[in-house]
């Protein structure tokens, strides 16, 4: 999971305030939370920062995918145990014989599914955080390798 520092080190660090923030560090925080986008940082689009911008796009890609629910999956840290797939209350309700009973999730479009040995976000549309605006952390609670995180807790 990227930290604000990971992002800050690729920013221009001039505190130019063009983005509306007082410092580049606070801009880094807002980027992580999805409250600002890279487009807000004008100097980044100058030639001298081209390399940095590409790095930042890479770092932020993983977060942008997850902004709707704040769920961030780091596949590299995942061992594919499927604990998260099995405990997800929505999966249990929708797929009691599959995920609910400890097997691979049988839904066509589940929230999470283990693919190639790593958990992947398939469709956050069913997630209680998205649908019911609930703060549910069931999937993260049973991950001991920190492969799952939520933006608000970063």
């Amino acid at each position: 999971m990227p930290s604000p520092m990971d992002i800050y080190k690729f920013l221009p660090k001039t505190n130019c305030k063009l983005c509306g923030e007082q410092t580049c560090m606070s801009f880094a925080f807002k980027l992580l939370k999805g409250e600002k986008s890279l487009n807000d940082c004008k100097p980044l689009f100058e030639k001298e920062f081209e390399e940095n911008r590409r790095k930042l796009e890479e770092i932020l890609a993983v977060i942008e995918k997850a902004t709707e629910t704040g769920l961030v999956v780091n596949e590299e840290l995942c061992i594919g145990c499927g604990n998260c797939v099995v405990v997800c209350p929505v999966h249990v309700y929708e797929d009691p014989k599959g995920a609910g009973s400890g097997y691979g999730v049988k839904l066509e479009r589940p929230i999470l599914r283990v693919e190639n040995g790593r958990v992947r976000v398939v469709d956050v549309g069913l997630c209680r955080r998205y649908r019911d605006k609930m703060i549910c952390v069931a999937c993260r609670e049973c991950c001991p390798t920190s492969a799952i995180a939520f933006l608000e807790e970063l």
Partner: protein
Amino acid sequence: MWTCTGCSCLCEDVEIDENTVRHACRIGAELFRGRSISRAEPLVEGKRTDIDSAIDKAVEILKESKGVAIYGLNRSTLEAQREALKLAEKLSAFVDNGSEFGRIVEAIFEGLIPITTIEDVRDYAYVQFYWRCDVHNSMPRLMARTYYARGKKRQRGYEEDRYLVVVDVRKSHTAMLAKKNASFFKTENDAELIGEFIKAIRGGVASGDVMRVVREVKKSEFNVILGGQIDAPMKLIEEFVKEVGYFVPLDYRTNSMGFFKTFGRRDELEKIVEDIDTLIVVGDDPMDDVGFDVMKSILKLKIIVITPKISFISKFADVVIPSAISGLECGGKMLRCDFKEVELKPPFKEGFSEEKILKSINGGL
């Protein structure tokens, strides 16, 4: 749906298409996805040959040998293990699968330790002890199937309907899962802690943490110890299991329970190296398990390796015989960690099964 032979969970719900392996953990996924990578070829003294010539050479070596050991067989089907048993009987060979579970499995076979199945643990077990096994790493999907899953009598989820106890010498990944309704005991002295538990269950007084778990144990008729390398006298473990309920041995080696059922014993390779001149390795790699000094002595022997993939030991072999991957490329049966027999239906058909290779060797002798 296919069965994964990556560990003794033998998960039977794996789906595969051209690019994706679904539901298998990282170990299983790599078994399927990496199937065609680094495959072994038939070799005699390092030179490429055909499989029949390799088998002939193996027979020739075995005819001249004065002492043989067969090592591995953990990824072998029961059928292949039975063929290895015939070979072992014919050659009066030693057999070893490298597993430390022999002692406890013997007690299970003698009926001294009551066992249960993964499905029954899921459906009924309240307190689940994971004792000296970092199951999250060694058998990654097991807890999803025993602890996190909902079961017939355990419908309300793990935080309410289960109590987790993890015992280990360190804060393993499995120990990090002991959160709500759970206890973690860090100890190097299993016997002492088991003694405390037995005393407390029988009405004695013990430390607060032990008493807390014992109160939970008394709430349910069905509790289970899922055991790894428990370092305690067998008598004490037997007593403990009887007080708690049931036991499941957590040996990650895929068909280790089948090995013990087939052979009924294990001759530790480390102790018999002096007595053999030939080693047959089936499916495993002793170089990952056996210490340097013993390994140096082993490498002086004649070595016959039957393996689907190039391994470290295959680099030192006099004969390499390539085999199909059990469960993926050839069928048969295996015993899951809880002794349930699982039928393997292979999604691919390729190469010679270990059973067939061992049968050919038996035929040639």
